């Protein structure tokens, strides 16, 4: 470490899945908040907030001098674009700092109509090379999220992407997506259904990860595999771990990452609060190797909790075929998550127990 050249600290972008989560994250030192309005972002509607709650979060963040980005990163239909632009205009007038979008056609329209509104290009675009970054810069974007794949998040790779004129952003915590974001139709191939829900959008494309975020997460499911030789086994063969790149924060920042993002609008406020607290400390002590290790350990425990909660969500999601379960999900899911978080934090033996149970379920492959 060279103390004469301190690492430039990246900004911390956090999910505002609810007013409560935003308040907690604000207290813990988040710099930027992102949130989507019901029906318009890549989250099942159960985890999205309505316009009123969004405006409350916006007011709160503005009062404390923080930034808020509006998430509009679905792949909309042609006939939905005018309504999407109207919503962006309304929220721009209310004071959002940027819009997160993924459709090149929509990004061009946003820049044409609101040239002073910053555009953050979503992870959905899977921008892996300088040509993509230069294109989005020309389209009017100021910040691009890099794909959630380990090869793309290698500091040596990121160094090659720096200097195109757009800022680089990445997920520090999140799912390590097996397939490229925005280029996976696996869930919709097996399950897509066009339904009308209670949002303003024309249809909810249930089953599509790209169009409504209502992904059935086939990559995390157990399946039966027949190898080319005829051998059959069962397992979670497409499952991968989670991104938890805390120990790489310094080299990533040195390579040119300007914003680090935490995934999890669907997670309980208590958990978001703890992740934000630890990540804030980690960023603030980026040049201090000794304290970093302590925070990394804490954060790794939280990522395990995130995995256990995700597995619970998946179990409920599996029942979402029926409208009864779809409607009841938000009612039982949040209290369940909160209880689990409280137990996890309070009792280390419970933590170990749940983690072992999770590993047993996740890794079983009967050959």
């Amino acid at each position: 470490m060279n103390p004469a050249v301190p690492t430039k600290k990246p900004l911390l972008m956090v999910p505002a899945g609810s007013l409560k989560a935003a308040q907690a994250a604000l207290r813990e030192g988040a710099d930027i908040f992102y949130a989507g309005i019901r029906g318009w972002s890549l989250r099942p509607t159960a985890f999205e907030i309505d316009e009123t709650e969004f405006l409350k979060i916006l007011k709160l963040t503005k009062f404390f001098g923080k930034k808020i980005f509006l998430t509009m990163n679905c792949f909309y239909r042609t006939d939905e674009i005018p309504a999407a632009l109207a919503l962006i205009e309304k929220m721009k007038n209310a004071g959002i700092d940027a819009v997160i979008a993924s459709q090149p056609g929509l990004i061009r329209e946003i820049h044409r109509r609101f040239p002073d509104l910053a555009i953050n290009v979503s992870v959905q675009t899977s921008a892996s090379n300088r040509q993509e970054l230069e294109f989005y810069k020309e389209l009017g974007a100021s910040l691009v999220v890099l794909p959630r794949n380990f090869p793309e998040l290698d500091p040596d790779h990121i160094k090659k992407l720096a200097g195109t004129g757009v800022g680089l952003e990445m997920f520090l915590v999140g799912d390590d997506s097996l397939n490229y974001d925005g280029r996976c139709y696996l869930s919709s191939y097996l399950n897509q259904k066009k339904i009308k829900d209670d949002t303003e959008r024309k249809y909810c494309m249930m089953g599509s990860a790209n169009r409504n975020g209502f992904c059935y997460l086939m990559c995390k499911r157990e399946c039966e595999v027949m190898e080319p030789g005829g051998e059959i086994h069962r397992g979670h063969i497409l499952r991968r771990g989670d991104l938890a790149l805390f120990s790489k924060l310094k080299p990533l920042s040195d390579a040119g990452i300007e914003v680090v993002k935490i995934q999890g609008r669907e997670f309980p406020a208590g958990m978001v609060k703890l992740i934000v607290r630890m990540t804030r400390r980690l960023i603030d002590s980026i040049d201090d190797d000794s304290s970093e290790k302590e925070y990394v350990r804490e954060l790794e425990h939280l990522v395990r909790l995130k995995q256990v909660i995700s597995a619970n969500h998946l179990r409920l999601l599996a029942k979402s075929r029926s409208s009864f379960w779809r409607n009841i999900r938000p009612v039982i899911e949040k209290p369940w998550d909160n209880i689990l978080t409280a137990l996890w934090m309070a009792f280390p033996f419970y933590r170990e127990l749940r983690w072992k149970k999770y590993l047993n379920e996740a890794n079983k492959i009967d050959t």
Partner: protein
Amino acid sequence: MILEISVPDKKSFSKPSLSNYDRLVIGYPFCPAYPDNPSYSHEAAAGALEEFGNDFDVVISLPVCPMEEEMEKVAAVLESAKNSGAKGVEVHSFGLLMWAKKSAPELDVQMGEFSDIYTAYDACLAYDMGASAGIPACEIDLEERIVIQKESPMELITVAAGIFPVAFSRYCHNNPDGIPARCTGLCKNGRTVTYGPDQKVLQAGRVIYSYRALDLLTMLPELVEKGFSIFRVNGMRMNEEQVSKTGQILRAVLSRHGSKPAKEELASMEALFPGGVCNGFYYGARGLDYIENII
């Protein structure tokens, strides 16, 4: 009416089996480890053009989501396409479209199946940037396709037959740690992955393919009537016989200008694909019309 086929390399199919096609889109854009791959190797691209360039319009398919480290190779392929008489190149993103049009303005550029064209706004942007044609995202339905075709000047390419990719990964599924230093070639056969009682996909290297093949034969007259004029056969995992007969049947139906396919033609097409056929999950109102047992 143009009938094109995607072909992984110059060795997979002979010229007679391709005789019903007007255009060949050559290259395996998903994997740098695929041997003699025109998408990643300029020698292979030049070789493919030498083999087929005199008899067909040849389009070289550039990689999907190439990493920065791979761009040098991709630039060499573009250069080779330009110098060896390719009609054009296929790209899978807007960044590569912009770059290809700047580097080789004389080449035609078409947008591939992973270009994320979901709306007429995307198609208009691609057209303004110089793309002549493109394949819309496979999960959009016929109604949306008609809107895009109507509202944008870019020609839409309709994939009419063959299994199609439903996901693409940086990781090789045959080697969970990533791309193997030495390719084992297991992807050539592929694993069959089944979710629940009847939901199958084919996992092959870095790509997951639909198990059932697309067969839009019954819809061709309607598509032609709606103004679609470029049709593609996805030849990626087909054999010589499948390629030849598919081309023969599609050519015969297209040449009859909108009249319905005969029963024998429908039956022969269906018989070509042992995994079964479907009309594409994006043409129905409720997903795969043959799958009831979802989740």
